[in-house]
């Protein structure tokens, strides 16, 4: 082993000098290691996580990006959509038309740590990260970017299937359901329909009638849990995908056709 013998003149003087001279000539006459920053820029890799961009017509306003943000720097804010935008909106168009104001993500880049979870968990692929990184500003308010400032328009939209990255779906606990259909109104993918409940219910007044219950189309459910949040009777809860698809309250093939 080299460290156990006594260092000689070669070790002390000649070999280190060789390395030093090699590096000296390389750094003096070779290509510079540094980049003259404002004039030229380093090429970021294709996977680079920079400022966010929202592919406008793909966003359905489900709020999953805000849900998975570890810093909670991303908030859903009401956004005025023009009639043309409502028509072009791909999947959430029904929501944009139904509600007076659609919601789109606004990001406070002063808190953002560019972890990329919003991009990874977006069910439609609307949230993307660009290679733009020059976000410095002179005041804190300037770092809050409303959704429209991150808007990107694409000519031909990629028609991706909706993916449930949250790995959970809502399951109905039929007993307390009052049939208000708030979940249907707020579902961003329109995957809920109201239909007759499994059995008749006795009201406070003593009358018996059938209360309509929500039914879920789990093939397009994205697991955003909006329905759970808006439910006034607390009759919905989230369950892992495999559990929810085996629960008894899902309409089977025949009732879906009907």
């Amino acid at each position, binding site marked *: 082993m080299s460290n156990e013998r006594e260092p000689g003149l070669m070790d002390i003087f000649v070999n280190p000098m060789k390395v030093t001279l090699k590096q000296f000539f390389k750094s003096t006459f070779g290509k510079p290691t540094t980049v003259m920053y404002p004039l030229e820029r380093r090429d970021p890799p294709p996977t680079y996580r920079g400022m966010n961009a929202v592919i406008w017509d793909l966003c359905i306003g489900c709020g999953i990006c805000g849900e998975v943000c570890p810093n909670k720097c991303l908030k859903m804010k009401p956004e005025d959509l023009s009639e043309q935008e409502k028509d072009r909106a791909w999947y959430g168009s029904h929501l944009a038309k139904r509600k007076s104001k659609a919601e789109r993500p606004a990001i406070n880049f002063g808190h953002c740590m560019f972890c990329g*979870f919003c991009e990874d968990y977006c069910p439609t692929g609307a949230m993307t990260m660009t290679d733009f990184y020059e976000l410095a500003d002179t005041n804190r308010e300037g770092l809050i970017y409303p959704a429209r400032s991150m808007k990107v328009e694409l000519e031909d939209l990629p028609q991706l299937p909706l993916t449930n990255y949250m790995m959970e779906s809502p399951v109905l606990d039929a007993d307390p359901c009052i049939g208000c259909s708030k979940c249907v109104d707020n579902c961003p993918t329109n995957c809920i329909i109201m239909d007759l409940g499994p059995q008749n219910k006795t009201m406070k007044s003593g009358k018996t009638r059938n209360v309509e219950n929500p039914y879920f189309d789990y093939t397009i459910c994205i697991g955003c849990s909006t329905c759970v949040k808006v439910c006034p009777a607390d009759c919905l809860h989230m369950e892992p995908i495999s559990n929810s698809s085996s629960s008894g309250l899902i309409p089977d093939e025949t009732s879906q056709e009907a």
Partner: protein
Amino acid sequence: MAEMWISMGPQHPMTHGLWTLKVKVDGETIVDADPELGYLHRSVEKMGERRKYFMNTTLTDRLCYASSTTWTHCYTHTVEELMEVEVPVRAQYIRTIMLELQRLASHLMWAGAYMPDLGHITGALYFWRDRELFLNLLELPSGSRLLYNFIRIGGVKRDLPNGFEEKTERILKLFEQRLDEYSDLFENSKIFRMRTDDVGKFTAEQAKNFGITGPNLRGCGTKFDLRKHDTYEIYEEIDWDISTREAGPGYSDCFSRYMVRIDEMKESVRIIRDCFKKMPAGATLASRIPVRAHGEAFRRTEDSRGEAMMYVVGDGSDRPYRWKIKSPMFTTMSACPHYLKGYKLADIPAIMGSIDICIGETDK
């Protein structure tokens, strides 16, 4: 002669990170020492209990910025046991490649930080020049230079990009030449050897009693590496050896701890090459990843600095009920009164630098 306490830190060139070392000196000789922590406490464990399981990989990245992948891997490894997730084989290979690249970057970061401690600022530039190569490699699949967030519960974020293997091979070849340069520059350098030989000695017996693990224990000649002894991912299928070095029979000094890290870098190069040879095709993320967990899990992995342990308790919700992190540096630092005693005040940077302190993971 009268004894007195000297406070080194929290703002001192010797402290990598924020901590205080109080030393009691008799003239120039150290009589006693007392390390103090708490300047960098961010309550990571408590923050993790408020976030969902998958979000915590961003926190574990920030435990140690020099070695973020190994910590994230320790966390995901524990949570995978808690949730009983099967990781695809290709994902395990990609993880191993990323872990070893991170180990190389971390050891180079340490060596670069150690050289200015010894008054050898040129050395820092040589090591950090080469660390840049590995940071560029780690950036390619993950999209970030330091905090990768690449290893996820159930696999990895994405497959390796095209041409990654060729780029890695090119850089590894270059790095092997650079390792020869280091032996010319440092191992045989009289000045470097005078600062590190026979300084900061502790025996393997002492190290085991203090709970010192990782390269610091292997520097005493003890063959103990969790990658072999409590194996995880695909380390048992890979052809590699545990690197040890000892200054004398059963004890280490600063130089043997330096050498064991250099040898470990050579082994890491071997592991990465073997991984590329044996890597199968297939999925990179498990098909079913639960979000809720019930029960408790405990795993330990070989961090760049020693034995990283994590303990997670789930109460059936989507957030951990309790999350405990055990850092290898906490025990190593706590033992410093034992191996500082008897040396001169000027040896403190050489001794404390040689154990590779990272306060981010120690103070959490």
